[in-house]
């Protein structure tokens, strides 16, 4: 019992210590992060046109990097 009480006492102390910790400034962190890494806007998915009359093979243009 005494051991348990001692343990509980230690836990309580630990908890007290944790409570002393300052809250992480998430908002500030996010503001700074967003400034250097702006959010990426993903364009909407593009609809594929249906051209049932067109059966000539199509080759996509070569992508210019």
């Amino acid at each position, binding site marked *: 019992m005494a051991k348990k009480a001692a343990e509980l006492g230690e836990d309580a102390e630990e908890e007290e210590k944790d409570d002393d910790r300052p809250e992480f400034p998430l908002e500030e*962190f996010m503001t700074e992060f967003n400034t250097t890494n702006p959010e*990426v806007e993903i364009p909407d998915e593009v609809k594929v*046109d*249906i051209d049932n*009359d*067109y059966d000539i093979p199509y080759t996509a243009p070569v992508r210019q990097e």
Partner: protein
Amino acid sequence: MLNIRNYNVIKFPRVLQSVCYLLGYTREEICEDSTNKLSFKKVREIIGDETFYQKMAEYKFAGPKNSEFREYEKMAFLKKNLELEDDQLEQYSQTMYKLFQWAQMAIELRSEDVTSRRDRHEELKQARETATAQAEERKVKLDSALTEAQAVSVAVFLTTDFISVLVIRS
């Protein structure tokens, strides 16, 4: 066009056949029964009717086409069907040559329209793929930066706490 109607036999029948298919006439409407051979008798009636010219004027080369098309109405067949000696055709009949040019132009414009829309689609698809990859990269970077910042914050707190304990004890 009216002088063509007076012909008994027609050369280069594939020109009229292609034009008619482009305008939506069926094989049954323009060919001999159960064949692919142009029936000039049937086509003579068609080109004598105002609907034929109306269809030519209203032919739309641009935009998606969702309805069903038979193989002979599709561009690959029509393009091949128009592979002929255009010099000879021009000598044979100016009217037929104009019809040939109209059909060729219709196919060319249709091809340009479809190709440019597909190019644009590819471009937008690639832009989306790039943006998705960049967003994913940013998310990984955020997770890592957040974990690091939180760890630093805890370390600073513990160090400060430890120093203050040492100061009190001393």
